[in-house]
């Protein structure tokens, strides 16, 4: 608790009668880059809006930098927010967009100019001062929105799906940009995303959310290697999850002998953890796609569909053909629930 910079305690958020987030507890350290990860409707955006002050909590407490800000209005909270749609002001030039907050604070003109120019330089938009947002590309608009928040020197910078509106190449560029900005400024960042690869690539710690609750919290490495629940495992790419009953694997479709008993109710495999071409079980390939260094198969088995990746060195199994496979104990992830 002592080193928490942002701290959410028993935070409950509701829309009318619907409770979107019940009793959330979360501590964020200073200078940390945190990802709120989860499918749509998991409460991640709601939580972010509450931190920003755009949504008043039903109960609970929000502390930032040692101060209780639960009842502090959004315009006095000293927080930055980069909207998914960027929410730039279309009637103002790029320069005036960035200067907007500084001018509100009635800072002297020279200072506004210096800070705005520095802010635009930080995101590589020097020379775009007189452009209107509508005359800028998606990536430039994104960076403009970032600069507009950064010049305010916020205690915490919130980003709502910062990469979702960009194409693949820009996404990578922006990801590096965000990491660089975070390193340079040491600012505490919280970003919301539904994309696990984005969260794992960017964040220091990932908060995986489901139904308004934290499903698992950890470093990307921890979450990737050791998901603790079926939901987390599925989100982290363990696409084959089966129940263990005695020494059998069981699904809604049927069962297969596994060989040994374990103390956990669920076992999970990544597609890469399934052995193809050898093993005690037999299934039929119903989908196959080439992915460069491996082939991705969908195998119809007594347990239903199994996703399996096979090395490109192995002979290709054609659609409709039988194939031997195994769900090895060595690559199984044991899940408690």
């Amino acid at each position, binding site marked *: 608790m002592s080193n928490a910079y942002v701290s959410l305690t028993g935070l409950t958020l509701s829309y009318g009668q619907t409770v979107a987030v019940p009793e959330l507890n979360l501590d964020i350290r200073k200078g940390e880059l945190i990802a709120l990860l989860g499918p749509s409707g998991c409460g991640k955006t709601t939580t972010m809006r509450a931190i*920003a*002050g*755009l949504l008043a909590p039903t109960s609970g407490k929000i502390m930032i930098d040692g101060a209780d800000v639960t009842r502090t209005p*959004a*315009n*006095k909270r000293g*927080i*930055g*927010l980069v*909207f998914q*749609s960027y*929410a*730039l*002001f*279309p*009637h103002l030039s790029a320069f005036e967009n960035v200067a*907007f*907050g500084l001018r*509100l*604070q009635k800072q002297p003109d020279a200072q506004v100019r210096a800070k705005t120019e520095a802010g635009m330089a930080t995101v590589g938009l020097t020379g775009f001062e007189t452009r209107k947002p509508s005359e800028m590309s998606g990536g430039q608009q994104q960076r403009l929105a970032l600069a*507009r*928040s950064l010049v*305010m020197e916020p205690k915490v910078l919130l980003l709502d799906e910062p990469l979702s509106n960009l194409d693949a190449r820009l996404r990578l560029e922006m990801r590096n940009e965000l990491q660089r900005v975070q390193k340079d400024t040491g600012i505490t960042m919280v970003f919301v995303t539904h994309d696990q690869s984005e969260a794992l690539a960017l964040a220091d710690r990932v908060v995986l959310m489901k139904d308004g609750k934290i499903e698992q919290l950890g470093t990307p490495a921890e979450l990737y290697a050791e998901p603790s629940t079926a939901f987390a495992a599925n989100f982290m790419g363990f696409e084959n999850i089966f129940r263990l009953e005695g020494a059998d694997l069981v699904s809604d479709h049927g069962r297969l002998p596994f060989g040994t008993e374990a103390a956990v109710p669920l076992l999970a495999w990544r597609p890469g953890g399934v052995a193809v071409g050898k093993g005690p079980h037999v299934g039929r390939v119903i989908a196959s796609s080439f992915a460069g260094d491996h082939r991705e198969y969908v195998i119809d088995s007594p347990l239903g569909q199994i996703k399996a990746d096979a090395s490109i060195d192995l002979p290709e199994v054609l659609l409709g053909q039988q194939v031997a496979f195994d769900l090895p104990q060595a690559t199984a992830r044991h899940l408690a629930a």
Partner: protein
Amino acid sequence: MSRLTIWLILGTTLTFLIGPFLIVIFAGASAGETLTFPPQGLSLKWYAKVFTVESFRDSFALSMFLAIFGTLTALLIGIPAAYALNRYNLPGAEAIRTIVAAPIIVPGIIVGLALLRYFVVPLDVTITMALFVTHTALVLPYAVRVVSSSLNNLRADMEEAAVILGCTRFQAFVKVVLPNIRGGILAAFILGFVTSFNEVPASLFLSGPGVRTLPIDMLSYMEITFDPSVAALSALLAFMSVAIVFVAERLLGFSRYV
């Protein structure tokens, strides 16, 4: 359809639309003493005479006053109303929208009669005040509708962004919402102005001795004097309307909002 048929239809339609306008212009430019078409010789004396008729000057001033201040008042009520209807999930918003639109739907003659019987007479309101209130009410629907449609195109998160950057809700409205719906507000003003200026049926009931709007004054002038000055005045007013719309179109693409 052959080209000839198409041109024929187009020509007929244009004649139908522009014809009356041309007749009025030329009837006003007559050198004769009575309102006739075709005019008996050409002269601008009736156009000049319009400016010397005292009652025209008074009623023009009143109509201008009503059109400008009635529309401004309607906007003053209409902009917040449109904003509230647009941004907040109000109970009965649909009902409010319908009520706001009522002055367009209900025939003006009924509005005028009702106002006279239940507003002007029992409350002993002055004629000018009665006209002002009526014109404001008649223009309000345009204000709400047109401003609503430009608010619809404005994302709500822009205001939230302004608030996060330090604005109060009100500042966000003034600094971010208003500048971005400027075009819609101007369009609503022009529509309202023209509607008010040309309003006859309701104003007919609310005109008293010495206090009338210009269209009513023109009607009563024609009952007594049948000279071409009314046609000349009509033509001048038409030119004024065209000029306003032309300038607005040039400045901000007025037609996008209507």
